[in-house]
């Protein structure tokens, strides 16, 4: 008897069934992981049925596309915000909290794919905005590109706890956001605002030393600070005690998340959304780089799986 389960973010989408169905490693369908009988909790159209209808094959896969860079704006030494012109459908599909794409220079092969969260998607003009922090092999190779990028998407599992986020209506939400995690926070905030939620933001500019929440959302921060400092932790503790929060969003490293949960007990009682910080490499549940292990020791492909707990 599990009190947690995993759902595939792609289940029922245009990309389901996928390679994992072909190899009998489907995250959702018991038949497509070699079992004899139905044992799933998926409530959409049956994945097994879709697979058989496709002629025991996966559906079409996400392909690389070449898109023009409309703008590449540098913020300080190590952040670039790209504005890209993309097909209309892709812009629409990426206007989801947790959406991300892979980007790379046209000159390199897919070893250089970087998963980057969507910060904003304008479906009237078919423009998406991505914030890239330059700090490793792959990001250094896109730093100076001004004309075209190769991108692949849509992917949707950039945030964990999406079900909590999508259910939230007329509620109070607390955002604790550091550094480049401002980018996925923006899509999440704009989604929550559309559902009449109130958002309080505590922001730590972190290594990128820049606050672009102000430009891309309509909210003002409660506090601009260092999230690791004791005074900030005390402030958050007090904030949670005073107000009834229904949702907390933690955008930052796993170290930050562990620090916050370790020092603020009350956080455990609030529904949460956290950034998916695992090393995402293919986004398709194939390469294994994003694997974590659940409480039963089962490997979980976090590029596609959402944990559902009770």
């Amino acid at each position, binding site marked *: *008897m599990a009190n947690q389960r995993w759902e595939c973010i792609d289940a029922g989408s245009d990309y389901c069934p996928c390679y994992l169905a072909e190899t009998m490693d489907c995250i959702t369908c018991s*038949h497509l992981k070699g079992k004899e009988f*139905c044992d799933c909790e*998926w*409530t959409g159209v*049956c994945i097994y049925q879709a697979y058989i209808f496709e002629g025991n094959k996966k559906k079409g896969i996400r392909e690389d596309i070449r898109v023009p860079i409309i703008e590449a704006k540098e913020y300080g030494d190590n952040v670039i915000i790209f504005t890209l012109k993309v097909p209309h459908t892709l812009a629409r599909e990426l206007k989801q909290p947790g959406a991300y794409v892979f980007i790379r220079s046209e000159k390199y092969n897919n070893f250089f794919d970087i998963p980057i969260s969507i910060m904003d998607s304008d479906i009237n003009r078919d423009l998406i905005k991505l914030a890239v922090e330059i700090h490793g092999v792959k990001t250094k190779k896109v730093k100076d590109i001004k004309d075209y990028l190769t991108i692949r998407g849509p992917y949707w599992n950039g945030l964990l706890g999406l079900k909590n986020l999508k259910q939230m209506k007329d509620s109070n939400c607390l955002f604790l956001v550091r550094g480049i995690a401002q980018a996925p926070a923006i899509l999440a905030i704009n989604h929550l605002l559309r559902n009449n939620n109130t958002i309080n933001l505590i922001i730590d500019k972190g290594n990128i030393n820049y606050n672009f929440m102000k430009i891309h959302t309509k909210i003002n921060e409660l506090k601009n600070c260092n999230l690791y400092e004791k005074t900030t932790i005390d402030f958050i503790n007090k904030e949670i005690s005073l107000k009834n929060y229904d949702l907390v969003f933690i955008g930052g490293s796993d170290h930050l998340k562990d620090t916050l949960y370790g020092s603020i007990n009350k956080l455990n009682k609030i529904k949460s959304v956290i950034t998916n910080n695992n090393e995402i490499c293919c986004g398709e549940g194939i390469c294994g780089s994003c694997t974590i292990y659940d409480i039963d020791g089962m490997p979980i492909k976090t590029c596609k799986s959402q944990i*559902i707990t009770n």
Partner: protein
Amino acid sequence: MGKPRVVIVGGGWAGCAAAITAKKAGADVVLYERTDMLLGLGNVGGIMRNNGRYTAAEETILLGANELFEITDECSRHKNIDFPGHKHASLYDVTIIEPKVRRLLELMGIKIYFQHRVVDVIKDKNKIQAIRLQDDNIVKGDVFIETTGSTGPMGNCLKYGNGCAMCILRCPSFGPRVSLSYKAGVEDILGQRANGSFGAFSGSCKLNKDSLSEEIVEELNNKGVVIISLPKEDINLDKLNMKVCQQYSLKEYAENLILLDTGHAKLMAPFYPLEKLRKLQGLENARFEDPYAGGIGNSIRYLSIAPRDNGMKVRGMENLLCAGEKSGLFVGHTEAIVTGSLAGHNSVRVILGMPLLELPRNIASGDLISYANEEILKEEGLKNRYTFAGASYFKRMKELNLYSIDGNYIKEKLQRLSLLDIYKEKLI
């Protein structure tokens, strides 16, 4: 402290019957149903009181669970009709019965939660503490009755059948059935077909009456049954082996198209290619009402039966009972009501620590429950179906003198056994 709470999962005939007897025995009863309607496959069935079902219905009424049979009798479009292999059947109108059952349960104070799909159990050793709903809410209870049936979901209907044919269970809309006994760690028993493959097709589909010729509709309305002989090239005896309802697996059903008037025109075949169907006189414009794709297939059943004792308690679990198809290779509404009524009554006995009621083998209901339990342990037994209405069990009923349509005879017998109105006893 409030009254002990009985939680019923699944609102088909068995679940409704269990809710009623549990309520009558004094419990606080809540019923969780995955879809937006009660009765499940009872919304497309309708055949009552044929052959030995008459005896079983009378027995259950005399045991004190009269309500549901009163409704099926009241809603019958035809009473006391005969069709091949079957005598004195009643056909209830499937288009009017569900709201009546719903109102009855509500009037009795049974709280029904529609569109609440149960997906897991929370247990401590062999005792279920609570069930978990799809929306992650937890429902606690003192005793639980699983009446989730054994049909579907879609992946099973595909692997063991011809795919989802869009039946009344509407899995794509309301989500898959979950075997709770399996979630509690009790392995399911699986029914087999004659060739050893798992599951069986539901045995009938329904045609929209308005799509049939005036002559057929008139005959259906007047007599309740229409028999159309099939051209030789369309006779398919193999179809008889696939279906659930062995009581209708007779040669007549392969050589003829048999239609019964249950509000829809019930076609006694698991599925029938539309093109072929429309070649028959009067059926030129026919279309399916249930399953919507009755031209290609039907739902697959018997993939999830819980092992149980004759008091309907699931083996290995302290406070889980089962009824209906979940409790054996049973076919039919009557069988569901008979087993459900017993499970509901016994759920209260479980709470009180009383010995469970087992129906004696000298009445048909008791014998069916015990006999099916013995047979399910045998390899051949998994290929049989158990129904008062026909096939091997009705033969057995006649041999053992368990079949009677004499109400007084049945009443005297139950009186002798001190079982009259036992389901009306308030235990709490």
